[in-house]
């Protein structure tokens, strides 16, 4: 914690960096969030892997026959869809609780609030790591052949992190002030799960319905999933996500600059 504290001339960037640079704090908090949740269970965080595995394993054959597609084409699509969707939706819903859940810290002393957004993101990254490993056996079984384009998943993932952090600040602030936004977000996410090609194949969409693919989650999913299945993501997805990122960053910066020190009053 800094030695000089004043309410004058504080730059928002310095506040943000103060919270971001303390990786040891937020990573430890995130780690404990995961560890403590599973402390009293025998398998521990492996439950994350197991329950996701059961879900994918159960849904794969059923949905493949429902959609009339070959299982080895459909299974990787479904596995990545469900895993990434779980990650997206956990990020969004956790963002709503980032500050409300940290009130015991925030009411105790000065904390740069970005710290708690990183904590939520860290926690979700740990959970995601436990689930994405499931894709390895699925890809091997289905014989997915990867090309160099798989490397595009790295910039896509970085964009995801930037968006997740910006959205975390934004939703965290809004949901602390207006508590029922959390409920709204939860139901929107449920609806979006069906509007995003998590389960279904985008190729099956009839022409007029293609506009559904313009939702940012569908585009993000395209950027992350397609290279991992040996394909190349659509250019529109890159453009769409680029615009979305700019929008998200702007909104988050405006809110952060204005309200970062007001949050405590809303708790």
């Amino acid at each position, binding site marked *: 914690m800094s030695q000089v504290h004043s309410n004058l001339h504080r730059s928002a960037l310095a506040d943000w960096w103060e919270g971001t640079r303390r990786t040891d704090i937020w990573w*430890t908090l995130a780690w*404990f969030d995961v560890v403590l949740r599973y402390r009293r269970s025998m398998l521990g965080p492996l439950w994350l892997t197991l329950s996701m595995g059961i879900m994918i394993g159960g849904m794969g054959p059923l949905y493949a026959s429902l959609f009339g597609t070959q299982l080895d084409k459909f299974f990787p699509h479904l596995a990545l869809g469900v895993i990434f969707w779980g990650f997206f939706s956990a990020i969004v819903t956790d963002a709503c609780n980032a500050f409300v859940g940290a009130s015991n810290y925030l009411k105790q002393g000065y904390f740069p609030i970005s710290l708690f957004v990183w904590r939520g993101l860290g926690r979700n990254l740990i959970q995601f790591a436990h689930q994405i490993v499931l894709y390895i056996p699925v890809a091997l079984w289905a014989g997915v052949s990867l090309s160099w384009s798989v490397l595009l998943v790295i910039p896509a993932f970085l964009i995801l992190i930037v968006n997740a952090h910006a959205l975390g600040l934004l939703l965290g602030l809004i949901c602390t002030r207006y508590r029922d936004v959390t409920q709204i977000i939860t139901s929107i996410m449920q609806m979006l799960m069906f509007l995003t090609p998590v389960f279904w194949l985008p190729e099956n969409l009839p022409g007029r319905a293609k506009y559904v693919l313009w939702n940012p989650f569908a585009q993000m999913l395209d950027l992350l999933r397609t290279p991992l299945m040996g394909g190349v993501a659509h250019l529109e997805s890159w453009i769409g996500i680029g615009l979305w990122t700019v929008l998200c960053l702007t909104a988050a910066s405006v809110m952060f600059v204005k309200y970062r020190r007001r949050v405590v009053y809303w708790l």
Partner: protein
Amino acid sequence: MASISLKNVSVSFPIYGAGSVSLKKTLAASVTGGRFGKETGVTVVQALSGLNLELKSGDRLGLIGHNGAGKSTLLRTLAGVYEPSSGEFTRQGSVASLIDPALGIEMDATGIENIMLRGLVMGMSKKEVDRLTPDICEFSGLGEYVNMPVRTYSTGMMMRLAFSISTSVEADILLMDEWLSVGDAAFTEKAEKRMRDVVSKSGILVLASHSPELIAKECNRVIHLEHGRIVES
């Protein structure tokens, strides 16, 4: 050098009743011209108004006042929790806040893990925490219990752990809400000595208390708060 300076500092809380925290009601109010969601009117509580205060090293400030006079709010403002709604606030030096030491103890984590968590949150690095951990365990007198989850502790043991952690760092500025005394007779004595130690090492002490004797004993300056104003200093 530790110093605290408050110039014309005010802190006011918007109290959002169930009415205005709800987006639905705010929207209803704006759409219907306010007739529908009348209860959205936000009450503002002026917790501190126009405070002026200068503290430098060696100052031992006592805060007195009835319940709700603003003592805890002032302590929290000094800790940096609440940013003043208006006025200038500058503080120099590291701060240790003993306002509510048990806040933020994780029930499912062990004693040792709680030391790490609290230590980091108090601004220490992992290395510093590792260095201090044996001392903290030793002082808390919890023995083997430090490796057990805190939920198995009695209230007294939990307080001992919290006390041992929060008094383990030296700080230039010490903020306290009432004198801390925890544990059984033997531990109280040890804790008392530790408190003396921490207080004597700190540059500035700000102590809020309802006990005139305590304030008279510990402090060399006293301010009396009433309705968020200094009425006497």
